[in-house]
């Protein structure tokens, strides 16, 4: 099966007064039809920037400096604006963290949704409204007829996010890029949205890139996981494998610092130090200064190596599956 989306060596840099911030630096991954990829990382790791770069939503001073984004045979990184506009919102949709930013606060939901339908297909207003009702029901909004006539501020946070998801689904896209869509929501509401998303992806065969800092959410939802650190994907593989046997010391450290994986009352295992600024990355492996396994070899940039079928990592000293014991210092 050919991949739906193939990102090759993508690099997005921000040219600021203080220097060049390498927000995304050589990211490669591919995504099949109907697959959910979890893109995990801490703030500033470049995960959102990667998602935005796919749709070329990068504003100055940022620029995609190299790489290709192959979507269904076209390179989105070099496509002209008109052709790109035909893809945005129709074949690739985006869901943002804050639905209040997606929705126009002074327009009614029906106005906004009908506009989105008619932007890509020449249908009558009535047909467009029917489609809106249909997708609102799909995402679990009760009484869609009445809700269509409401303004965004009439909705609760969870409902707003459902509307944003409904808008993304309007054109039955091949790919949805979801940027932290449940981060601002409560646990019970988050579970509701995750349940809807799981069902929709299974029913419609939509592929998804789920960007999140929350390993727990991603582990329950994704088929594959890619872990980002300082602008690079440090590890990717099948979700269960990344969770059970992480190769990269950073992935391991990240999972070990989650409270529920530690014994109560004992100090949490922590990663020392903090993430480097993308303006001033350490030489070689960016994780080296915080890494328990870092040594002289790490002063040069580790390449992405496929250690097991479908499981790759950028590390000279990965946690191999046979011998998981700590290396001698």
């Amino acid at each position, binding site marked *: 099966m050919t991949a739906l989306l193939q990102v090759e060596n993508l690099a997005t840099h921000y040219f600021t007064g203080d220097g060049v911030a390498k927000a995304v630096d050589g990211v490669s991954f591919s995504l099949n039809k109907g697959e959910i990829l979890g893109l995990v990382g*801490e*703030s500033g790791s470049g995960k959102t920037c990667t998602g935005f770069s796919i749709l070329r939503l990068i504003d100055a001073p940022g620029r995609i400096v190299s790489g290709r984004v192959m979507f269904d045979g076209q390179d989105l990184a070099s496509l002209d604006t008109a052709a790109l506009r035909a893809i945005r919102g129709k074949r690739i949709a985006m869901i943002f963290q804050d639905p209040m930013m997606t929705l126009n606060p002074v327009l009614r939901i029906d106005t906004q949704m009908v506009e989105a339908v008619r932007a890509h297909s020449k249908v009558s207003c009535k047909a467009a409204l029917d489609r809106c009702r249909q997708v609102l029901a799909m995402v679990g909004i009760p009484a869609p007829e009445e809700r269509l006539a409401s303004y965004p501020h009439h909705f*609760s946070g*969870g*409902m707003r996010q459902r509307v944003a998801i409904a808008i993304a689904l309007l054109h039955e896209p091949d790919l949805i890029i979801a940027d932290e869509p449940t981060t601002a929501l*409560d*646990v*019970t*509401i*988050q*579970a*509701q949205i*995750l*349940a809807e998303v*799981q069902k929709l992806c299974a029913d419609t065969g939509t592929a998804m890139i789920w960007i999140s*800092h*929350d*390993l*727990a*959410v991603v*582990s*329950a*939802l*994704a*088929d594959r996981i890619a872990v980002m650190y300082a602008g690079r994907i440090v590890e990717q593989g099948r*979700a*269960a*494998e990344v*969770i*059970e046997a992480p190769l990269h010391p950073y992935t391991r*450290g*990240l*999972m070990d*610092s*989650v*409270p*529920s*994986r*530690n014994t*109560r*009352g004992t*100090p*949490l*295992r*922590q*990663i020392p130090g*903090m*993430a480097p600024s993308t303006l001033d990355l350490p030489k070689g492996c960016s994780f080296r200064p915080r890494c328990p396994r870092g040594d002289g070899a790490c002063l040069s940039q580790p390449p992405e190596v496929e250690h097991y079928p479908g499981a790759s990592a950028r590390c000279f000293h990965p946690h191999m599956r046979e011998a998981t014991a700590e290396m001698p210092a």
Partner: protein
Amino acid sequence: MTPIIDMSGVTKRFVRELDAAEKIARRLGAKVEERTVHAVEDVNLKVARGEVLGLVGESGCGKSTLGRMVAGLMTPSAGAIRFRGKDVAGLKGKDAREAALKVQMIFQDPMSSLNPRLRVETIVGEAPQVHGIVPRSERDAYVADMLTYVGLDPAMRRRYPHQFSGGQRQRIGIARALAVRPDFLVCDESVAALDVSIQAQVLNLFMRLREAFDLTYMFISHDLGVVEHISNRIAIMYLGRIVEEGPTEAIFGGANHPYTQALLAERPVIAPGKRKFSTIKGEIPSPLSPPPGCHFHPRCPHAFARCKVERPALKEIAPGRKSACHLNDKAA
């Protein structure tokens, strides 16, 4: 032993007064009511010295309002908060100041709780000097000590808050609270805004400081994993009321209240393999017009007729464990 903090019948109501037009409309016979939000309703909680009480709930359940009342930033509309056995509202002069100093608060967002125009040395050092905890001449050394305790380099004390990272700013907030030598800290979502690896560092700091300074915490969070890790005892709030309370192991071992059960079931945990999310239906009702009876009944899978009319009392179901659910009477 008297508990360090004793809340009895604590209630907070926010009332929106009628404006002039609405008052006139009411004179003329229109049905206009003052709108009241019951943010916190009749909460009874005791916190023993040296304990970590975790307060869990979703947004809008009143957990922050309760925390702010305990820290003395708000006064309860009804009920009393006693600090070491004395009602805080009745204290005057020196005693009131003492009680206020001994209970400190650490906020969620350090950027909005630290003055951006003050240097760290002022943020941390001002209060202890004003309150006579350290003389002017020893202030620099005292600030350096405080910064060292929370894991910051004292050489950074001339910097402003914006020159620090999120985790470091949270440490400044902690140093500021510690500087007045409190006994009780209210931590309101203090690690919620931090990345996992930084969150672990700050949680470890909280646990280390607790031993070093003999502190008692009220730890407010929506993150069950964090609360489970740090607390001895947990209270769960829903729409202004405490619905369940008990030792951490007992609650995580077997929740009694249907809401707690749902919260625990839906907590995302890191586990290999996809999971099906089963969901409690509906959303949190508006606190402006909470449902009658048990607040949780519209979403509860076990609700029966009595839940719609009668508010369940928070009753002891086992030693040290309380739950507010009619199902417990039914079973008995």
